């Protein structure tokens, strides 16, 4: 029982960090970033090379992740999505473009990084006992760092000028533009921030799970599940979705045999979406 709760908390925090980036991009630009998992994967590889191979300080490597993924996110928005937004009349076009960027990143990664699973030395070692439960120090560190990042992001979005502009853009693009906000610039920063968050999640979790070129889609799917539960484009919704998914997964694997857990998760999700398509915290009008 205690192990189940510990597993649930750890999963929920990790998942929250993954879901936040994708919901941020969706809220600002109304684009479901299919390449989110691939950005997570690239973050993992940046840390693998800088910390694992070139032996740079782990936290310096995380800063590099923010820069690399920030530039990738900014470039995607500036050179691909902005142009698409101006030219295309149908929303499906940006969705297809997002799928294309995911395939591009995955195949580039396969060519550059190879097919093998990679791992890095642990940043901290040891295992803590909490009652009868085990919590490795590496997981605890990731959980603490993820919590700091989540709180930091919430404060940034709530209290900074750029954060307020992002929230305004999420609510109404036209009105934001009329208020004198450079919406293109804010959208590019928003995409960069979302990509950096995905990369940071990858950079944190590579110390626990390792990384490989094909891992992206799995994280994208989990991120989609979370934002569907919590409500697409709602930051607290992403966190709530992560908590629900993390605990359902932990409880399911503990109490149910086989892969009934994910069968139940997907069945439950279908029923839930039939009853509340906007998610727990989303608004019916979008």
């Amino acid at each position: 029982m205690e192990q189940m709760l510990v597993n649930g908390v750890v999963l929920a925090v990790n998942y929250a960090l993954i879901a936040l980036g994708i919901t941020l991009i969706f809220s600002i630009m109304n684009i479901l970033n299919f390449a989110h998992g691939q950005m997570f994967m690239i973050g993992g590889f940046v840390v693998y090379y800088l910390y694992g191979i070139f032996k740079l300080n782990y936290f310096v490597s995380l800063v590099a992740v923010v820069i690399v993924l920030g530039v990738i996110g900014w470039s995607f928005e500036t050179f691909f999505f902005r142009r698409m937004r101006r030219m295309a009349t149908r929303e499906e076009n940006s969705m297809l473009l997002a799928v294309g960027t995911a395939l591009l990143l995955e195949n580039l990664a396969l060519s550059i990084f190879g097919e093998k699973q990679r791992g890095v030395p642990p940043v901290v070692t040891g295992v803590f006992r909490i009652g009868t439960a085990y919590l490795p120090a590496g997981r605890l560190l990731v959980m603490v760092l993820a919590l700091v990042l989540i709180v930091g992001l919430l404060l940034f979005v709530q209290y900074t000028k750029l954060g307020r502009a992002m929230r305004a853009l999420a609510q109404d693009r036209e009105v934001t533009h009329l208020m004198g906000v450079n919406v293109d610039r804010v959208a590019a920063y928003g995409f960069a921030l979302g990509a950096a968050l995905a990369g940071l999640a990858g950079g944190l979790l590579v110390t626990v799970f390792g990384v490989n070129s094909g891992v992206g889609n799995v994280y994208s799917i989990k991120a989609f599940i979370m934002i569907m539960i919590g409500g697409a484009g709602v930051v607290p919704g992403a966190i709530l979705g992560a908590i629900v998914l993390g605990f359902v997964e932990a409880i399911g694997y503990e109490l149910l045999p086989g892969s009934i857990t994910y069968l139940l998760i997907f069945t439950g999700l279908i029923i839930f979406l039939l009853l509340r398509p906007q998610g727990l915290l989303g608004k019916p009008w979008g």
Partner: protein
Amino acid sequence: MSTLQLRRRNFLVGIAVFVLGTVSFGGSTYAQEVLKIGVLGVMSGSAASWGLVNKYCAETSAQLYNEQGGFEIGGKKYKIEIVPIDDKNDPKLAVSGAERLTKQEGIHYIIGPNVDTTAASVQPVAEAAGAIYFPYAFQKTLYSPPHGNAVLGMIASYQAGPIIYKYLMDKKGVKSVSFVARNESDPLNQRDEGVQAAKKLGLEIKSSDDTYEPGTTDFFPVMSRVVGKGADLIVLSGVAPADAPLLIKTARELDFKGTLSTETAQDIKILNEVAGAAAEGFVCVGGASTPEIRSDEMEKFVDRYKKVAGEWNDEAGTKVYALEIILATLKKAGPEAINDVELFKKSMPDFTMKNPFLKEDKELKYVGTAYFSQPRQIGVPMVVNQVSDGKFQALFVGSVE
């Protein structure tokens, strides 16, 4: 001679050299026959290493032969051309890939696919097109009559499992076992075969219904349950090289003190990088060419493989055999067999050659009659390894008949 005349002469000489060079180069290229070999398997996504290792092995061997002027069959040297197709582990793509290889490319010999579902889907295409294929999937019906076009490329889990369990019972006093498998056809079949083998040997089965979804990276929830059963041995059925170190690490973090094993081949670099010291004592089937038993020819192959793929992969020690045995069997069956696989099949029962990848003087032949009622398996050595001080140490080397 004026400068202009000199330039004109140099120009004409240049043209003549170019034309002659092109004619002679083109002439030699077109004179040589090409033998195309298909590689069909998963080359992207989380299981990419399985298919890519097949591709890299075939490309490496082809390079080595082509540098010597090609491979000789019936007194004629053939340039080996590898045609790879990624099936993404999807049966639909495997079917379309097999159709492309057999119908568009006219290929009769295919290495792969990698799993039961894709191998089974390719079966009707290969049989209708008159092609032989070498899957790395363990489903017995693929290789048993009335089917005869598939040849298993490696040691199956139901061949290695009982031997590993018996060894662990005798040497480590293992009395009980738990199984955990990925929720996919191949690993689940391997788990079921493993459970049957363990029961026959008298092991107590503590649990066998725990599975995880493909793509899982956090194994704490599923392994909490498995470790909680208190078995002496946890078998990771059909585990992929990407998942094995994470499962091992998680089991050790959950204070599991027993033995962990699998019947699939793993990669020591991945185990060391991801699981670290937690991988010590892990038992697995090895690539069939571990450093202790390699011949000079295998060493040469390893060096070239590193150039082709970037780094060595232990799986390649097993997968190096497929192209080698295809070419050697074609040599025995004669050039007509290149387009007529029935001639190839007729040569299989009596085919034998010196194993070029082993130091010792051992035979390489088709085996598997005891399992499939016909010789439809490459007789690669069965190497069982244990991780010791961050390296694979061969526990024993056996064979399948």
